[in-house]
């Protein structure tokens, strides 16, 4: 049991924000495949795929409400296999944090601060995140309480402003699903796999006030963020066109840069940058916290905080060196690469073993308990 607790409401806010941040970053429903004007359908389909993965992740966690992945994986699969699985998931946290912050850095350097070194932007964000993770999950939860309304307001305004200027709003979404299911299914794959963000539930579940409800909370968060994703896909395609959005590095940012409601309401991309920054901050803080806490349990260190500094440095190094340029970063989010890496590496192998271990235990002992 852990002394630090966050409420399920705070968890809901965190999960909504970190998933929505991916939407406003590179909008995988549009950029990862050629769904074009049917991106909204891909967003809806990705909800079901992601919900399945959430059930896989959180379904196991709620069966061990007072244990983290590190504790129950050892119980289910034995010390070495269990720890091996844990290291994969913990590496995923490091990987996600590094990739997310690199995307954020690419956006800032490419769009706003061309002369600022990438490492400075990444380090600055990491320093803030490090302080949050050091302060603990309760502080991260309270930060979510504070930032969530501002985040939603900014995203909401970014989505409402373009509506007045769209010449042929629904017409731009035509022809509807004319090219069959293949492009839509292809475009749904990456947003589905990006639910790997919710792997944090494997560590966080015991830290919530109602651990048995974390699955429901996660599904609610997924539902809300999928609504935002669907609406965003519709508005981005309607505003900038399906082809331009698909060729854009950051389609949501492009859409906001294209807003001109009146002579005065324009150049409002700062809202997106801030919202992205808030989501980025919470996401990274969460990954760093979960990574350090998980690793401290694996290697038997009492306090995860001593690991935060070294992990943050590794994360900065990784985010700079994992991708040589934006092309490699975009390449990662293709169905071929991410499908193999995330789909098989982070989901299929670890969770198949864990669930098999769990089912074996249930059949053998008829209980989850260690005895």
């Amino acid at each position: 049991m852990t002394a630090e607790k966050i409420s399920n409401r705070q968890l809901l806010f965190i999960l909504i924000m970190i998933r929505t941040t991916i939407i406003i970053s590179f909008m995988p429903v549009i950029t990862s495949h050629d769904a074009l004007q049917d991106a909204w359908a891909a967003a809806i389909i990705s909800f079901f795929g992601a919900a399945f993965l959430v059930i896989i992740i959180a379904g196991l966690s709620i069966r061990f409400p007072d244990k983290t992945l590190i504790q129950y994986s050892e119980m289910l699969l034995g010390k070495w296999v269990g720890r091996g699985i844990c290291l994969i998931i913990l590496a995923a946290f490091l990987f996600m944090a590094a990739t997310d912050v690199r995307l954020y850095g690419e956006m800032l350097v490419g769009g706003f601060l061309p002369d600022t070194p990438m490492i400075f932007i990444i380090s600055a964000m990491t320093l803030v995140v490090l302080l949050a993770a050091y302060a603990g999950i309760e502080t991260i939860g309270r930060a979510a309480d504070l930032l969530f309304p501002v985040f939603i307001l900014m995203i909401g305004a970014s989505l409402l402003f373009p509506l007045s200027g769209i010449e042929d709003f629904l017409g731009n979404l035509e022809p509807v699903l004319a090219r069959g299911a293949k492009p839509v299914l292809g475009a749904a794959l990456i947003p589905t796999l990006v639910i790997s963000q919710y792997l944090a539930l494997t560590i966080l579940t015991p830290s919530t006030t109602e651990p048995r409800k974390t699955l429901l909370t996660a599904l609610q968060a997924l539902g809300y963020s999928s609504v935002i994703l669907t609406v965003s896909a519709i508005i981005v395609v309607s505003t900038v066109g399906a082809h331009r959005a698909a060729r854009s590095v950051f389609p949501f940012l492009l859409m906001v840069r294209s807003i001109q409601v009146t002579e005065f309401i324009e150049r409002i991309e700062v809202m997106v940058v801030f919202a992205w920054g808030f989501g980025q901050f919470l996401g990274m803080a969460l990954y760093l916290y979960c990574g350090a806490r998980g690793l401290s349990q694996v290697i038997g260190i009492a306090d995860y905080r001593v690991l935060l500094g070294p992990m943050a440095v590794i994360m900065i190094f990784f985010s700079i060196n994992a991708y040589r340029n934006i092309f490699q970063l975009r390449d990662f989010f293709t169905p071929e690469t991410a499908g193999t890496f995330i789909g098989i590496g982070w989901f299929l192998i670890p969770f198949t073993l864990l669930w098999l271990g769990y089912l074996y235990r249930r059949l053998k002992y008829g209980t989850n308990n260690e005895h």
Partner: protein
Amino acid sequence: MVRTMSTKDYLPVIRWGDSSEGGVSLHLRWGHFSEKGVSPHIRWGHSSGGVVSPHLIIGIFLVAISVLLLPGCWDRKDPETIAIVLATAFDYDEERNMYQVFAEIAVPRLMEAEEGDRPERASWVVSAEGFTPYKAMSNLTVKVPREMFWGHSRILLFSEKMARRGIGDIIDAMGRTRQPRLITRPVAVKGDLQKLMSAELALENTFAIGMERIIITVKQDKSVFKDILLIDLIRKLEEPGQEMVIGKITLSPEHSNDNNRESSTAGQGAEDVSPVANVGGCALFRGDRLVGWYDENQSEGWLLARGMGNRFVFTTTDPEDEDKYFTVEVFRVISDWKLTTDNREPRIKIQIQAEGTLKDYAGHESLEEESEYVRSLSDRCAQVIRNRIKDALVKSQEVNADALGLGNFIYRKDYKLWKELEPRWDEIFPELEVDVEVIFIFERSGLITDPARPG
């Protein structure tokens, strides 16, 4: 007493030991040592029992503050060090195969002058050349004493030569680079680009602001010009079965001639400045190349067919007396397109419902009530609208540029049919039958009914 500090003093003391929870824990001690032992430390409230020097805390604080303050430094731009571009224009030198860019740069010192001392012109037009659009833009750097800033360029002009050569690479440069905004207004210019940009406008002291105001006014009060933002133009370029249409500015004949221009701009006041340009009509593209022009009537037809535009003003003859005219202002247009196929051959029907107000009337008939005469006035208006639309269609078919987006309409409504037609759309479009049906409704007769009659 604290010893002199050295790097060694700040090395962390790390030792491994048994933790109270049974595992191995890492004990960290940060700090420096005084003669009496370890100097006062702040203890962090967790079980590892690590201690941190106040100096380290101050160090972290300073780093944190610098993180907040420093990120902007690399990209710091003070307003007095930048040259704000208000209008950007591209021309093409065919002999040298070079892009020519013209930038109208604001001169804030002149803009801030007192009302009486304010000069006619508060901007400077400068040009440069390059083999690509961006190269030309960057070549301006060596001519301007400040750093160019393109983020406030309100209008993007293309000369006829440039537009006929193709504007795709300029659109690409504008979308790819960071500063230019996609909410700038692209416009095609008929006439000398440099003369147009250098001319003085009667009511404004910069070309860009003056032209932008004319465009907005025309858009609001007399829809004879396709006002479009660059992002919408890009969308049109990329959509299948749809060609680009942008507004046209024509340099007035007296400014086309150098001598006339000098006499007009060297005048003593606004009353001596003749209108520089006419904002009306549209440029038709095929792909990214200009292939023809719409006059004002055809532009009205295009806007009516698309159900766009804000106000249209028509004049036509009185059904009872061909020598008398009446003027109508159309303030609402609803356009509905229908696609039918006959043996997999498309046929499109454009149905228009327009509502308008009588603005002037030279006839003698009573306008007190709905009558056969009022209905015949409506029919005349409907005929004018139909002719406008047909004119626009015929013009676009002549140059084989699907400016109305009929192919795009088929693409949206019947994707399979479009896939069949797409390879030979260039042959189908010039011959395509389009039916135009117009219903015109006189909403009101203005503030009076019958015309004034001599007593």
